[in-house]
């Protein structure tokens, strides 16, 4: 892998950029891999990367049915934060944030991780109690967390309308939160994994598994069978579909979640602002678009779209909080398929099939976890035992009742 840098660019400028090498190869699948990762989103690619980098397993394939990063990785609102309520979640997401902080350097790919600050607004007494509890909980977990008064919110976001239908009563700020460039995350991991020998196989759909005596032996794909010592499934919205192929069901439902961008404008929103009570969140990308999201449709769907009324339900609050955007225009809307668990926490787990591991259920909020998820999942696959950070997220919690209930406290996980 040739190093990217300003010097590399200068050097290549002299040769008219004709000598850049491929970011990753497009190999034909080998007959057998030590580990096959199903799903070439950020999490799958990160898993492959850490398997190669930290676990010494380089005979790895990532099998992606479409194009790399074309799942939710390529369609999310890029919010990164670790201010989760439950201790288990805080540990997981902060592990990710710590990895994010060095990721561009580590991957030699600028993932534009921007710690511009993430602000949760509280609009009523209940919200204040919620951020009070969560803010303290995060603090006790040793993660940065600050309460803001309405005045401080206004200082941070001068364009906000504090006295809207649900007035802003306060805010919870995580300064280390922010955004990252979604596509770059997939590409950066792919390039770095490829450089260590991981085969990234696109346009190849996993259609079944070879399972003998309860042990997985390989995957069936649209490009033939591929043997595998172990299989890690990281298929996000399609997790249930893949599980069905392996003969079991998951506590998941796949819901549409939409987002949209405005036309690009000069910088006007500096941090990420989320509002659970009136459900809209907003940030501004480096290209200048406002990136806006809200809640998902309330029915399952694999359509990778959503209903227009959900868009209206997000634009309304945005204009309530930022009336100045009334004349600004929406440029594009799109949807993703989010696999949601009842406790709004992910599942990283062994499965009824030996040597098959699932990493799913990140729902509407897993982008932020990409490095952390890949990291602990890689270690879990390599060892055959769930990594301590991942262990509480096993599937058996739905039998024991030991949910990690981020939903219960009315926090919404984006």
């Amino acid at each position, binding site marked *: 892998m040739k190093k990217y840098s300003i010097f590399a660019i200068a050097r290549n400028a002299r040769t008219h950029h004709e000598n850049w090498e491929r970011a990753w190869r497009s190999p034909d699948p080998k007959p057998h891999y030590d580990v096959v990762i199903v799903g070439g989103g950020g999490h799958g690619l990160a898993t492959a990367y850490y398997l190669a980098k930290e676990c010494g397993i380089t005979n790895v394939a990532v099998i992606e049915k479409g194009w790399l990063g074309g799942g939710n990785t390529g369609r999310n609102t890029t919010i990164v934060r670790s201010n989760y309520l439950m201790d288990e979640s805080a540990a997981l997401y902060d592990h990710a944030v710590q990895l994010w902080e060095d990721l561009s350097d580590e991957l030699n790919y600028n993932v534009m991780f921007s710690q511009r600050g993430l602000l949760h607004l509280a609009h009523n007494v209940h919200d204040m109690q919620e951020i009070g509890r969560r803010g303290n909980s995060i603090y006790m977990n040793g993660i940065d967390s600050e309460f803001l008064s309405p005045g401080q919110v206004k200082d941070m976001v001068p364009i906000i309308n504090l006295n809207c239908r649900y007035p802003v009563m306060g805010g919870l700020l995580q300064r280390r939160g922010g955004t990252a460039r979604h596509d770059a995350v997939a590409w950066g991991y792919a390039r770095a994994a490829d450089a260590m020998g991981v085969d990234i196989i696109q346009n190849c759909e996993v259609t079944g598994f070879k399972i003998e005596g309860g042990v997985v032996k390989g995957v069936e794909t649209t490009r033939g069978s591929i043997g595998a010592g172990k299989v890690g499934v990281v298929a996000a919205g*399609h997790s249930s579909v893949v599980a069905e192929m392996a003969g079991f*069901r998951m506590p998941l439902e796949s819901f549409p979640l939409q987002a949209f961008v405005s036309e690009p404008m000069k910088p006007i929103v500096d941090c990420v602002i989320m509002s659970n009570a009136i459900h809209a969140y907003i940030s501004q990308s480096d290209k200048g678009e406002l990136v806006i999201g809200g809640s998902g449709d309330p*029915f*399952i769907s*694999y359509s990778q779209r959503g209903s227009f009324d959900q868009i209206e339900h997000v634009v309304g609050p945005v204009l309530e909080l930022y009336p100045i955007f009334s004349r600004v225009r929406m440029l594009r809307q799109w949807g993703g398929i989010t696999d949601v668990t*009842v406790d709004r926490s992910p599942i990283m787990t062994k499965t009824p099939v030996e040597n098959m591991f699932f990493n799913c259920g990140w729902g509407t909020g897993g982008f932020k976890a990409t490095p952390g998820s890949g990291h602990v999942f890689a270690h879990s696959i390599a060892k055959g035992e769930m990594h301590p950070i991942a262990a509480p997220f096993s599937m058996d919690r739905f*039998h024991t009742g030991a949910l990690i209930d981020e939903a219960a406290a009315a926090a919404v996980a984006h």
Partner: protein
Amino acid sequence: MFLVKCPWCGWRDQTEFSYGGEAHIARPLEPGQISDAEWGDYIYTRRNTKGVHAERWSHTQGCGRWFNALRHTVTDVMWDSYKMGEDAPTPPKDWDGMTCCDDHKKLAEGAKK
């Protein structure tokens, strides 16, 4: 925003309805007799079908009644709805959700033949 067919009120805007998740999940009759795992599956595990999905809807803003429906979850086309307690209709096996509701009667007849 798709349309949902209320068995009584007819095709109406989806915003008039509430979604109730997968249909035909009966509450275990003897919860005391089943394992934690079976109970957990009853509360949490769902088919989450990609394809023809039997699901429950309530016409909340209209008549307020619950009913079942078959919808193709790839295109959100609803095949048909049916009342609680009735058997689910049977679209052709290869129905891909890419037909409009007007055609469903014809398709259904074709499938029977």
